[in-house]
């Protein structure tokens, strides 16, 4: 056993766990760890400008690689600033290890300088957290933290380390010597329940696959298996916001995203199906709309690694607890062994119905030759970046929904967005985290100007670490989604939903030392996008778009899927008082 200080143990344990990058910000209570980071070259440290940025960067890193992200923050404000990122990662099941400094053990509870009850504050927003009071237990706890973050349903964990524990010396426990955790969630699905699913696959007249982030979290093999299953059954497939890319957008069975701003054909297929196969999604309220009327005539199957997800919101007929990869392997094995049967008499009729729904072309919008429509900007971005090694992050709001509708994702881990928590300010730091993981790739943050301003300080990080992230800001000088709801639900009283005193984004870019592009004429859009793509460095792209565009299709709150709105034609009075509150 090697003796070392707690601070060195932190760095050693990170190395043992294969960590390459840490996103962090120093402060008094983590100085010993920063001193150790300084004296080695295996782990790269990315200095952020705000701890929230560090956690979102770690999320971007994790979502785009499938590996856990690591952030390092100091005590007190460092830890409290990390709370939003932790909650975001918890909601979207992203594996993170956040290490926080703490005042020395003998000062805990005395309201010391930069003291906060970090484990108390972060208990509800982490999968697990630990306050380590003994250096001898530190290495073991760090290894345990990685195990917990990455096993079962992934999630963020936090280890709070008092400064005296960092200074003290003890034996280092290597990864192999760490005791086996009792935390071993079930990953293999029940074979008898899987047989019931196979029964349903064989007989379904109007089936639909409804997939989510769990497919992506399960690893690349899960996406491959899903593609095999879809190809061999020829069933239609839709996905939540979190699951985009697990089935390719160019695939012929792809219905597009479902949910509140999902595609007409996807939502109507969900409403009209007789067998719904949920793979790694969780019946979020943005998906289901009014529960009572959610897919009323279907048998529902739910595959989820988290037993508490099953029957939490929607009662299902078959609930299979397990890892998507292992469950899909078993589904394919059983179904193939039984002859790969589907209801071939009924499926063509179902597809004919879907073709009719597709013909509605629900994403149609009225383009303009004088003003850039946000949808058009994204269509051009999609066309001009197609086939590139491309990663997309977003902020939260209208632009996020349009990005999900108009950009196509062919592979998992290419789309990083804040789904569950809906964190404005996520996209810019997340894009930097993605770029750090994939230095040669094209990383674009599709943003709204309001969200983007929330963490714009991280442009400094992008500059310092030469992360050539492209900030594609759809600038409508409005909090677009808020404005849309106010138009539809609050008598067009636009309370605090426009952005006054916006900065000059081009000058802002120059102030940070990167490139700024402003564009407001649709005729110049392609050239501007090409200029952005060609620039070797970060770009702030200020795309001035139509200020009052609404995001459609839209399932009004309190309405079932089959009552979705398709466009501006008649939105007045569609949402009643009951719906207004569901926003």
């Amino acid at each position, binding site marked *: 056993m090697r003796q070392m200080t707690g601070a060195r143990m932190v760095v050693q344990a990170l190395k043992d766990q294969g960590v390459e990058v840490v996103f962090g910000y120093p402060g008094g209570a983590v100085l010993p760890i920063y001193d150790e980071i300084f004296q080695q070259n295996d782990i790269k440290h990315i200095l952020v400008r705000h701890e929230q940025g560090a956690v979102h960067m770690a999320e971007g890193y994790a979502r785009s690689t499938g590996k856990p992200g690591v952030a390092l923050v100091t005590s007190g404000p460092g830890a409290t600033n990390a709370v939003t990122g932790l909650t975001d990662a918890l909601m979207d099941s992203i594996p993170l290890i956040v290490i926080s400094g703490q005042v020395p053990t003998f000062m805990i509870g005395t309201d010391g300088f930069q003291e906060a009850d970090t*484990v*108390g504050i972060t*208990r*509800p927003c982490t*999968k*697990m*957290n630990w*306050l380590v009071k003994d250096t001898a237990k530190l290495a073991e706890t760090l290894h345990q933290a990685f195990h*917990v973050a990455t096993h*079962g*349903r992934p999630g963020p964990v936090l280890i709070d380390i008092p400064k005296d524990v960092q200074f003290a010396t003890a034996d280092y426990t290597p990864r192999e010597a760490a005791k086996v955790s*009792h*935390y071993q*969630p079930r990953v293999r699905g029940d074979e008898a329940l899987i047989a019931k699913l196979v029964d349903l696959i064989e007989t379904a007249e109007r089936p639909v696959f409804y997939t989510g982030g769990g497919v992506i979290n399960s690893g690349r093999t899960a996406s491959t298996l899903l593609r095999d299953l879809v190809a061999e059954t020829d069933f239609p497939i839709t996905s939540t916001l979190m699951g985009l890319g697990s089935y390719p957008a160019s695939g012929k069975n792809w219905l597009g995203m479902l949910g509140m701003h999902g595609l007409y054909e996807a939502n109507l297929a969900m409403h009209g199906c007789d067998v719904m196969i949920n793979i790694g999604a969780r019946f979020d*309220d943005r998906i289901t709309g*009014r*529960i*009572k009327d959610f897919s009323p005539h279907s048998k529902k199957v739910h595959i989820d690694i*988290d*037993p*508490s997800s*099953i*029957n*939490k919101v929607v*009662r299902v007929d078959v609930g299979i607890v397990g890892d998507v990869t292992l469950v899909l392997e078993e589904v394919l094995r059983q179904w193939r062994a039984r002859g790969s049967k589907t209801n071939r008499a009924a499926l063509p009729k179902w597809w004919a119905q879907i073709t009719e729904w597709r013909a509605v072309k629900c994403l149609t919008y009225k383009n303009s030759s004088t003003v850039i429509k946000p949808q058009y900007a994204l269509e051009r971005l999609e066309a001009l970046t197609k086939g590139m090694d491309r990663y997309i992050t977003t902020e939260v709001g209208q632009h996020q929904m349009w990005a999900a509708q108009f950009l196509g994702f062919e592979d998992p881990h290419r789309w990083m967005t804040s789904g569950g928590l809906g964190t404005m300010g996520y996209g810019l730091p997340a894009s930097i985290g993605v770029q750090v993981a994939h230095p040669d790739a094209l990383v674009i943050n599709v943003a709204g100007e309001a969200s983007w301003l929330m963490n714009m300080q991280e442009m400094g990080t992008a500059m310092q670490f030469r992360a050539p992230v492209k900030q594609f800001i759809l600038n409508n000088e409005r909090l677009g989604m808020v404005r849309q709801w106010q138009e539809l639900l609050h008598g067009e009283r636009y309370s605090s939903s426009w952005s006054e005193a916006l900065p000059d984004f081009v000058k802002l870019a120059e102030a940070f030392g990167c490139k700024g592009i402003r564009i407001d004429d649709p005729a110049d859009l392609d050239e501007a996008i090409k200029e952005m793509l060609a620039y070797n460095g970060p770009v702030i792209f200020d795309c001035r778009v139509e200020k009052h565009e609404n995001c459609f299709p839209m399932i009004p709150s*309190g309405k079932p899927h089959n009552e979705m709105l398709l466009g501006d034609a008649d939105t007045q009075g569609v949402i009643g*008082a*009951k719906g*207004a*509150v*569901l*926003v």
Partner: protein
Amino acid sequence: MSALNIKKGSSSHSAYELRDPNGDLIESHTLAVVVDNESGVLARVIGLFSGRGYNIDSLTVAEVDHEGHLSRITVVTRGTPPVIAQIKAQLDRLVPVHEVHDLTAEGPSVQRELALFKVAGRGEARIEALRLAEIFRANVVDSTLESFVFEMTGTPEKIDAFADLMRPLGLREIARTGVAALARGA
């Protein structure tokens, strides 16, 4: 939901569906939860209940395996069958939780609670209190000329019944441990 003063059948004051479809089928369940005996684990369990809006009627906790660092939490909770199922699933996914048993659902169980009652009085009332205590098999663990402290072990219902009887006889204070429970049989 009545606490939120929402008219039955209306959801017009909330961002979410508030009507519980099984609102009338509230059941009481006793859960035994075996957890790592580490700092913060009780806060984690209680935080789960408060954070997700579940009820705690009674809660006891103590270490039961010193070498294995395991504690047993016995919690009595109320809810509709889906809510009870959800509570169990949510408890079970907590990292320091080893086992969750629904003693109400898994078969017959023994449930006991210990309570201390301070009863003050003179004359007839005092004699009556002592007589009732004998009937209930409560022990006198402290006595002055003007008061008794009774100790009693029993089901929560028995303790409630004894408290009701003592109230007119000068009941001053009650201390209860909350329910400890085990499944019957091996």
